[in-house]
């Protein structure tokens, strides 16, 4: 591979307006070749919009985007791609039933050339167009090994794990000749090990001269891996600095500085976990629960008891039974055997239909927030105010018959205010919100329900520091009232901050139970199924 000569990217006085809202306001930004540039800020601060303007996905309302000194010819992803700019989105843009290789070449398919196909007019039509998959595979392999991206090119995308899908996305922009790669919250879905691997890849690309820009919420990774950091608040660039060895050395200080810039003030410390009384009763019990699944996506003999006021964290590499644990507790899938009890009474015993099971569990106080926001929690085409009450129409307090009661408006606006959803307009469609604000909607709806036990799948994925703090506080408050909370998260810091103890899922089994003080290494080993004296669960 020829070493890339990446373009210098400049935003000059760029603003972008959505309706009455200024998403980005008169922003100047320079992305230098050979460096990893982190863009940080709260949800809705305008980070993603700024990058989307570089990628030709969103037109600036004023100001100009210059790539290699020249403004974009037209605002299309293709024009940006022609100038060597490629973007990896927060939500993957892959065709699931296609193989990795097919996704890679989609739109830029290499074809066999022959003398006939060069005939004018009818030549390409009649003789051209036979796919040259071998050429594609050779090129893809070279790019992948060069960048250190392990992707199984012949696997269907639907069979790939999250980390591999992301590697495929990066490989795809490289395949299209991108010299500048923009990544929107790439680490939100990754396990700690995968995060390190991702940045190793990005570093390798930067060293070859690529320009790298990353939107992220995780300040620790900014301090560890980025060269430049720009902080945005409410559409305005408020802080920029180059991170040198000294800044990395004093990581805590640097993180504090960045946090202050992001929030415009200090984040209060997350409150300590209140102790659980010795005689606290069991609230949520799982007794040798089995759920069938594919490969490691299953549950095998899961035993877990959550007592009143207790917060239990669940760690594990994605696809090791977390989803099954969430869905079986939500009533969406049926356990093959075993028992689930809430306050001593068995749940999901009658052979009712799925909707009845879901509603029954919720009515009795078992509230579940699933991890896949767009699949299970948020209707993107419905308004925010609708999303705040989905599933609650007809429940106590809301409409009890076919006519919707007027107090729905009160419930909806109470939930809307709980986490101060941005933009401040409940009439927006779900898809107009940033990922973090969507999560605020989802969490506000769940926390407003009558809760005995709460199950949270990735509660702060893609959520900014400030909001994550508010959500964590709410979880703590809930536990203090005597509810039990089960938190499944890829963020070990989150699990440590919230949990009284952490259990580790591996291949559908609980393989370890650790105190929140356990090290990353200890938790990581358990995730990989490496059992160890004294730490392995009985």
């Amino acid at each position, binding site marked *: 591979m020829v070493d890339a000569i990446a373009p210098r990217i400049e935003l000059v006085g760029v603003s972008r307006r959505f309706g009455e809202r200024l998403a980005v306001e008169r922003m100047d930004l320079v992305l230098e070749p050979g460096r990893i540039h982190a863009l940080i800020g709260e949800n809705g601060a305008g980070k993603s919009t700024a990058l989307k303007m570089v990628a030709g996905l969103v037109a600036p309302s004023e100001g100009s985007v210059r790539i290699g000194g020249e403004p974009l010819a037209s605002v299309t992803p293709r024009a940006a791609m022609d100038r060597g700019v490629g973007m990896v989105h927060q939500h993957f843009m892959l065709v699931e039933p296609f193989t990795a290789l097919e996704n890679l070449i989609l739109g830029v398919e290499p074809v066999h050339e022959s003398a006939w196909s060069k005939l004018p007019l009818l030549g390409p039509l009649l003789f051209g167009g036979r796919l040259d998959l071998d050429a594609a595979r050779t090129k893809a392999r070279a790019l992948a090994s060069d960048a250190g991206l392990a992707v199984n090119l012949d696997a269907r995308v639907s069979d790939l794990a999250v980390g591999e899908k992301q590697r495929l996305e990066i490989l795809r922009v490289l395949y299209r000749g991108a010299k500048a790669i923009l990544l929107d919250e790439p680490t939100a879905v990754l396990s700690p090990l995968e995060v390190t691997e991702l940045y190793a890849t990005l570093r390798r690309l930067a060293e070859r001269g690529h320009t790298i820009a990353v939107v992220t919420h995780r300040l620790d990774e900014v301090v560890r891996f980025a060269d430049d950091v720009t902080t945005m608040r409410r559409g305005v660039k408020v802080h920029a600095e180059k991170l040198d060895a000294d800044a990395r050395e004093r990581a805590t200080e640097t993180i504090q500085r960045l946090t202050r810039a992001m929030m415009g003030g200090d984040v209060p410390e997350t409150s300590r976990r209140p102790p659980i009384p010795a005689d606290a009763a069991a609230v949520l019990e799982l007794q040798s629960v089995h759920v069938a699944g594919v490969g490691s996506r299953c549950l095998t003999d899961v035993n877990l008891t959550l007592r009143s006021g207790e917060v239990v964290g669940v760690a594990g590499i994605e696809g090791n039974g977390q989803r099954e644990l969430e869905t079986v507790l939500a009533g969406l899938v049926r356990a093959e055997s075993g028992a689930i009890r809430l306050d001593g009474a068995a749940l999901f015993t009658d052979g009712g*239909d799925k909707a009845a099971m879901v509603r029954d569990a919720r009515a009795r106080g078992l509230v579940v927030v699933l991890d896949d926001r767009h699949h299970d929690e948020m209707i993107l085409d*419905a308004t925010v105010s609708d999303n705040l009450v989905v*599933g609650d129409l007809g429940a106590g307090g809301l409409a009890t018959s076919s006519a919707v009661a007027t107090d729905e408006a009160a419930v909806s606006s109470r939930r809307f205010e709980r986490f101060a959803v941005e933009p401040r307009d409940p009439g927006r469609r779900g898809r107009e919100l940033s990922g973090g604000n969507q999560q605020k909607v989802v969490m506000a709806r769940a926390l407003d329900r009558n809760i005995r036990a709460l199950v949270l799948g990735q509660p702060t994925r893609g959520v900014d520091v400030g909001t994550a703090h508010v959500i964590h506080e709410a979880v703590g408050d809930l536990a203090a009232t005597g509810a039990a909370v089960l938190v499944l998260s890829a963020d070990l810091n989150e699990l440590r901050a919230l949990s009284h103890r952490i259990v580790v899922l591996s291949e559908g089994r609980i393989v370890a139970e650790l105190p929140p003080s356990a090290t990353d290494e200890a938790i990581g080993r358990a995730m990989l199924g490496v059992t160890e004296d004294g730490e392995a669960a009985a």
Partner: protein
Amino acid sequence: MTPILTPARQRTLLALAGALVVMNLASFGFGEAPLETLGRIWAGTWGTPYGIGQVLFKAIPLLFTGVAFGVALRAGLFNIGSEGQLAMASLAAGFFASKLGAGLPWVVALPLVVAVAALVGGAFAAIAGAMRAKLGVHEIITSIMLNRSADVFLPWALAVGLSVDGVRTAPVAEGARVPPLERWFPSFTGSAASLAFPTAVIVAFAVHAWTRRSRIGRELEWVGQAATVCEAQGIDVARRRMQAMVLSGAIGGLTMMGTVLGYKGYYELGLGAGAGFSGIAVAMLGRGGPVQLTLAALLFGTLAQAGIAINARVPRDAMGVIEAVVILLMGAAAFASSQDEVKSPVPANRKETAG
């Protein structure tokens, strides 16, 4: 604040103008002086009270089936079975109405007959609905097959005893007739427009309000937008789909108010045929709401009536071509407007805020 001629509406008008140009060219191809055809169409449709009445008459089934298709579409279902549903409902309610006592007052007879039509239309749609909800068989397949089933069933049912002469039912009871508009507007005299038209408009508005305001109506729409979310949030997806399908069939069944009760006074084989499919185009063009739906039904009603008006000189099938051109151009205009919103820095005026 909002100008009446928004860019989207300008495009719609432009699309209509484009269709007129195409029609002109087409009639030129048939050896007619182009403007002459246009004049004849005007005279046959909106140019005379009789023409207007005929347009309203043609719009009745289109509006009913358009509303019917739209309801199912809200729940994410493609009910292609309106054709069979309205035919079954027409026969059943027509036959039922013929058996009612002649002296029965209209306040009793009419609601009864309409209820039978809705019931039978809904029941016939329920077959496809149940197969989708319980077995996962796609409603496009089943509703098309049910259309064919109705095609076979109807002549048989008429032949074995529901008819007086093998093709038509006995006349409906006088009290079950839907009165023609000419009773109040004498200038409509001779046209087949009946009170079924205002009824259809009311149904369009009522259904719209219901889907916006009632629990079931709103959950229907959510199911159409994201069934997996609804499932996880405890909404009975299968049941809502079933309800959407049944309601769609019932509204489709009401079509017989315009044809059987408002026009012929009996059911005969093929009465109202084709409206089930045209209704799909009406629903697609009129997706914005009941006003748009009514306008779309009037547009297609106009085209259908225009086809009859020019039939002597230009083959009626030419109107089929025009219909296709209208759908194509309006679709393009709608697409262009949707692109507008994606691309422009200032999106087109936002809809009202809820709550």
